[in-house]
């Protein structure tokens, strides 16, 4: 009896460390596939880009008959990137675009989400699906569709407006940026609406009830309760929208096929594509990509910092 208890007692502490070790290792085992993929497909390219941004291929004469010499160039590629008018102007365009497109799109998404959250709208699933549907259309296809709708002679919209005496030109140099913004608004309002809507759904209903008992109107409830309650989701969608803006590539690249008013370096990403694919200068492209990455990083930090301070003040 006593021996049996003794062995049982002795056996347990011996087994425990083994079981504990397995438990401690398990998370890493489950994480391993992610970590490997993360290292290979996220970290390695970044490291490679940073590395390659410090080198240059030097050639001489006509450049024929030699392989060219790869030399360390210090910050030269960064100087070239930042003195590249097109690349820098691309940031300007994207900032202007973002300042207009992001608030308009998020405002629209927020209003729609609030409408769907109240009892105002009937056939909710139908409308929700309709608003969300454009997101399912690939951005290239969206740009093709809108590119068609913007073109004189073939677009029912342009021709329709023309027949009532309004001669619009959606693809003229001053307007084309906003025509692009319209494509983005059409594409991503729905998905942002869904995110904001689900945040609204998770707000406890008792709060609304309390507000109603206090005599708050629907508008008052929306402004003073709903929007502050979903602030974290709003910050998140705002952040994603800014990142999306800075990375704009598919839509302008596709629309370029229908209008020459979108230059080859219209957005920072297009300038990178131009430098690497057309110019064959991977080193310069890497430097540009690092610059773009840093700008997005800094913008993200600013947005997060501001929103955190605001949330803190509210509390």
């Amino acid at each position, binding site marked *: 009896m006593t021996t049996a208890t003794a062995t049982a007692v002795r056996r347990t502490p011996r087994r425990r460390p083994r079981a504990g070790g397995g438990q401690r290792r398990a998370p890493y085992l489950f994480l391993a596939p992610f970590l490997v993929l993360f290292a290979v497909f996220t970290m390695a390219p970044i490291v490679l880009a940073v590395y390659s941004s410090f*080198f*240059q*291929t*030097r*050639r*001489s*004469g*006509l*450049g*024929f*008959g*030699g*392989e*060219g010499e*790869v030399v360390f160039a210090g910050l030269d590629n960064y100087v*070239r990137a930042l003195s590249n008018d097109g690349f820098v102007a691309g940031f300007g365009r994207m900032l202007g675009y973002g300042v207009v497109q992001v608030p308009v799109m998020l405002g629209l998404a927020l209003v729609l989400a609030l409408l769907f959250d109240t009892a105002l709208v009937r056939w909710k699933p139908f409308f929700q699906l309709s608003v969300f549907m454009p997101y399912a259309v690939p951005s290239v296809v969206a740009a093709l569709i809108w590119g*068609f709708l913007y*073109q*004189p*002679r*073939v677009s029912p919209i342009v021709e329709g407006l023309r027949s009532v005496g309004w001669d619009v030109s959606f693809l*003229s*140099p001053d307007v084309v940026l906003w025509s692009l913004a319209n494509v983005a608004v059409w594409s991503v309002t729905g998905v942002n609406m869904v995110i904001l809507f689900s945040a609204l759904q998770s707000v406890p209903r008792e709060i609304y009830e309390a507000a109603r008992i206090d005599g708050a109107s629907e508008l008052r409830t929306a402004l003073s309760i709903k929007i502050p309650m979903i602030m974290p989701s709003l910050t998140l969608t705002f952040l994603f929208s800014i990142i999306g803006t800075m990375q704009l590539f598919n839509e302008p690249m596709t629309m*370029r*096929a*229908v*209008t*020459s*008013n979108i*230059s*080859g370096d219209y957005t920072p990403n297009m300038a990178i594509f*131009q430098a690497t*694919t*057309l*110019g*064959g*200068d991977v080193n*310069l492209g890497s430097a540009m990509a690092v610059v773009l990455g840093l700008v997005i990083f800094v913008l993200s930090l600013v947005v997060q910092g501001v929103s955190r301070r605001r949330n803190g003040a509210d509390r």
Partner: protein
Amino acid sequence: MARSSRLLAATSVVVGAALALTACSSSSDDSGGDTGAAGPVTLEFWGWATGLEDAVALWNEENPDIQVDFFRMTGDDGDKIPAAIDNGTAPDVVQMSVHSIPSHVIANRLTDLTEYVGDLEDDFTEASWANVTFDGSTYAVPQDFGPNALMYRSDIFEQHGLTVPTTWDEYLETARALKAADPNLYIAQMSPNETGYWIADVWQNEGSWFGIDGDAWTVDVNDEASKEVAERWQTLLDEDLVKVVDMWTPEYWAEINAGTIATINYAAWFPAMLEANAADLAGSWSVAPSPVSEAGSTAAGAGDSSVDVIPTGTEDVAQAAQFLTWLNTSDESLDILVGENSMFPAALSGLQSDALHQPNEYFGGQVVNDVFAEAAENVPASWVDGPVYDLVQDNIKDQFAKVGNGAQTFEQALDAAAEYARTQLEQQGLNVK
């Protein structure tokens, strides 16, 4: 680093090829065949011209020792080529745009073919051969060519009692007459996004974007030859005689189909596109030689054309060159490519072939290739591509967009593009004069 990885890639290609060779030669030993250094080889060939499959099949039938494995390129496959060559996984033979040659040569991606195909010079038109030869070395074999001629709406010309212009001065007069007859009519369109028009006009004027002077590149984007063309286009634009519309867009084809554009001075491969996109206009078009600067001249312009190259790292260069020579100069091959698949050939023998000179139903039974073939032989050998061609072309498109909007003149656009080209060449570390 780039060099060592390239070396590694090259080594692995050599090892792979050696293994393949051993495998092949052992099998040929079994059959008691010859055992020369040039055993049976299999070449991989990437291309896009229609009919290449048929030509390759014929070659494979006749050449058991040099088998060709054809892969049809589509869409953006061309973008894969530089990476494929740099990593040693490129095919043995590739079709590419002629304008890409210099940028690939300076990146050491193309085999110097001078000793293999150098004596083919007399088989090709002067201009197409000049395009594959740089600084005395030949890097490609010309495949097709795109000489210009004037496609015009004979019905519109007839309706307004106009004659077909033979000089650019007459062209301008005709443009004015058309405009006077019907304000909705334009003699042509100006397409900022299509440099082919521009290149052809400059080329006809014996101009070029680049040149080679000793061991330095010259930038000729805004030289006299180009400025003359710029002046002509500026007049057409200022007087609203050309319609500003980007090419290849639905809007462009809508304009063509609506009959607002009366002439298209464009390449030999365009009639097929016209037929495909404006079928209703069958019988309304005719073809005449392009107008020229001075009466009596026969100079013609040309735009894009394609060539076949042999990437570096290919083992069987001699066999690949042998195949390319056959593909692009032999009657057997040209009959297939030209006759059944309406490629416009760069080879002189192809220009003479009966297959090329057939009546074209879309053009009311006119033998339009009579005009294009004559133009092909009259394209000056002046055009030289440069290592930053793609960038410069992109820049010119952006500059011309501003011209189309009235924000600057053609001349300003050319000066800006020339400045851009010079900077790009210098940044590549190349000599520029």
